[in-house]
């Protein structure tokens, strides 16, 4: 974990990362924490590969329409002529793989699997990132408040966190989504589902960040540099924003990168259970759930979204591990 260092020992690692307390950006002779981390990360090949895959996935999700038009397919176009009507599975081997359909087609509808995988990435990435964002915002604010002010506020927030950590979030999400109206806040169908998923996953994720932040703040607020700031007359808001938060960037970054894959898995699980995005919107979990029925007769249909989820989660985790190692000042690399 990031152990903030004495502000006096400026020649070793800096106490405050880039945004210096004064707010003025000045060139530091020594290397900033960010640069140290980046240089460490650069040497970590595994993390870099993970990062590259993540970047690729994000780009694929953003440019999904472009990619599908390049391969000449769209995610919802049905090709029933490619389906054997007797068994509902694609004609041909490997789930109907062909020059037109590189990863084959879905059983029953004959929709292009590659196009659906690419579009499915949008849902996964969107939910993964936004729910992590929700968790980080709530977690950081409440964690800082709890850690800094202590007392009854700390007690209340900590108990809430304990409660939420013990909460069966998947069950809650399922029941909440199934009672949600179809139209809400100007959104309909898939929009509502996406929003609810993001909020629910984010809401149940914040205590993880909150606990880390609270612990950090708890130890930081007793440090000499904080006391120095306080004795110089700095207000609470100033201390929190300028002195504390910069030191929290590292742990928050690490936890965020590790939280995203978990969220992606939760989204896949919800979609698998039928409370994810609505048809015909493609999502990996939903594809996997549909594939169960055909695991023997068309195994490719199950393997492809499974591999997509696997690669994504693995890439995020490798990247997250790398970021953690790089940001750890006690790290040896």
């Amino acid at each position, binding site marked *: 974990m990031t152990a903030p260092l004495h502000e006096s020992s400026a020649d070793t690692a800096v106490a405050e990362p880039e945004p210096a307390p004064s707010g003025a950006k000045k060139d530091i002779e020594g290397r900033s924490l960010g640069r140290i981390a980046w240089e460490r990360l650069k040497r970590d090949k595994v993390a870099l590969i993970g990062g590259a895959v993540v970047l690729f996935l994000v780009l694929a999700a953003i440019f999904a329409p472009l990619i599908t038009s390049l391969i000449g397919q769209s995610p919802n176009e049905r090709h029933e002529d490619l389906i054997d*009507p007797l068994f509902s599975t694609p004609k041909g081997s490997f789930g109907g793989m062909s020059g037109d359909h590189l990863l084959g087609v879905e059983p029953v509808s004959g929709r292009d699997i590659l196009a659906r995988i690419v579009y499915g990435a949008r849902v996964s990435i969107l939910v993964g990132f936004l729910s992590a964002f929700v968790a980080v915002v709530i977690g950081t604010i409440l964690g800082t408040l709890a850690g800094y002010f202590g007392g009854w506020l700390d007690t209340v927030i900590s108990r809430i966190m304990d409660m939420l950590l013990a909460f069966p979030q998947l069950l809650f999400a399922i029941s909440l989504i199934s009672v949600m109206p*179809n139209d809400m806040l100007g959104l309909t169908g898939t929009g509502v589902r996406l929003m609810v998923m993001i909020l629910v996953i984010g809401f149940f994720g914040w205590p993880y960040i909150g606990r880390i932040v609270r612990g950090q703040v708890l130890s930081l607020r007793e440090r000499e540099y904080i006391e120095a700031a306080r004795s110089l007359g700095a207000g609470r808001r100033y201390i929190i924003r300028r002195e504390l938060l910069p030191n929290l960037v590292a742990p928050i970054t690490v936890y965020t990168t590790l939280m995203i894959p978990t969220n992606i898995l939760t989204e896949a699980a919800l979609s698998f259970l*039928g409370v994810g995005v609505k048809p015909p919107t493609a999502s990996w979990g939903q594809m996997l759930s549909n594939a169960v029925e055909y695991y023997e007769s068309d195994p490719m249909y199950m393997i492809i979204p499974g591999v997509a989820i696997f690669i994504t989660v693995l890439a995020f985790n490798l990247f997250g591990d790398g970021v953690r190692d790089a940001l750890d000042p006690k790290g040896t690399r």
Partner: protein
Amino acid sequence: MTTKRTSRRRLAAVSALAVGTLLTATACGGNDDDNGGGGDAAGFNAGVNKVANASDKKGGTLRYVGVQDADSWDTTRMYYGFAIDFSRYYSRTLVSYTAAPGQKSIDLKPDLAKSKGKLSDGGKTYTYELKDGLKWEDGKPITSQDIKYGIERQWAQNVLSGGPVYAKDVLDPDGKYKGPYEGGDFKGIETPDEKTIVFHLPKPNGDFEQMLAMPTNAPVRKDMDKKSKYGLKPFSSGPYKFQSYTPNKNLTLVRNKNWSAKTDNLRKALPDKVKLTLLTNADERDKRLINGDADLDLNQRGMDSQGRTTAIKEHKANVDNPQTGFISYVAFPQSVKPFDNIHCRKAAIYGTDHKSVQTARGGPMAGGDLATNMLPPTVPGWDKNDDQYGIAKGSADVAKAKEELKKCGKPNGFKTTLAVRNTDKSDEKSAEAIQASLKKVGINVEIDPFDGAQGSSIVGNPDVVKKKGYGMVLYGWGPDFPSGQGYGVPLWNSKYILDNGNNNYALIDDKKIDSQFADAIADEDPKSAAKKYAEINKEVMKGAYYLPLTYMKVVQWRASHLTNVYSADAFNGWYDMVNIGVKK
């Protein structure tokens, strides 16, 4: 009828568990054509419209396997189709179905009675005389009082809920009688002596005997009535009796020594023992059938996709592909705009690619033929050529759909929501197919899957339907008894628009249809009644209240060593269980 709804529900809930088997399942494609029991299979569709391996040979054990237990084995409380079929092993009724394949089965034959009912008083009085030598499983005679008591039990809905109540509704339309536990004796049924029973109907009903054939009207002996616990060990009047039963696990029937074949020419009762094993996983069920560890699927909902593929590819001679009495359809609730306008409804019918829906339901074998109208083929009066919207040709009629959209005042299309139960995979796939094809004519369909188990309070509640804006409701339906009344009244009669548990999803409130029903119901001649029901069906289709999807078929496994197997319209296309035997 709830049969289909509920049985589908649990079946689907169970198939979600199939994931678990991914880890343990082994491929079964490799085994050769040896299906336990030995011998050659009777051939593809050998049990459809004909008898597979006709035989009178007694003995052996018939092994059923299922993924769903009966709603109750109490004859008063059962509603699932397979339970009604299975109940004939241990219960008899005044009249019952002919032991013959296909359509012939729906002709009623005397069972406990010496002959079919003698009508008098302008069709309002039915008199039956019982056969001699009828005995309960303990050897005591079955009396007309026992039959009366069995029928009376359906009035006690607060204790014995769940079963159909047709006889109750016909005999006591105002619900004055309180049932045998609170109300004593019902005056509408008289038993002048132990062998005679007389029914007094307030109004004639041409299907009254069809209703009497349902197990709800089987005899129950008063001293054996354990009320709500009766379903755990019903007292047998039929050829078999309960030996042991553990709910959701297994059930064993053994011969009832006091049943005499001489009094019963509707039941062959060949095996010495009937065993039922209940599993939780449809995939495992199919594997057991294919590997010869079980003979028949109790639930008879057809094999799952994988089992079906293996069965058809490698053991086609063991496969029957009967027509069921079920139809899948989309109803257009008129309370939801713009479906109050007939032209918008027509646009949706024309705009649907019917072939695509059929493929989504599993193709012509597992899904069934395209439904051209709302009557299923097992219901007398059905006419395939009543195809007012050109559904049989399969593809969507985009030009006509656009034209109707213009007439409806929505030339650019509209948005609507389609409700589909999340417990039925075929339904969900059909919904996506409809969504995709309607998009092409400008109708944007939002699919809203709802909890199938809660159907009666979601799509069955017109207020909820309106509030949620369900312009389309995808569902399935089959007759409770094979007549237009048993099938169509709950769907199309304005009297049956209920606040909860409604099945008239389209909210059809048409004086003409109502009076046509009254006329058809009063008709005592099944043939002319069938014609009248055909007319009602035509009228319903004319109103464009429904988009019929498929006449459902199932892919059924029939073990090679089974004898006397045939599917019967009387049981919605399922096998006549009580007549199946086992080759040793």
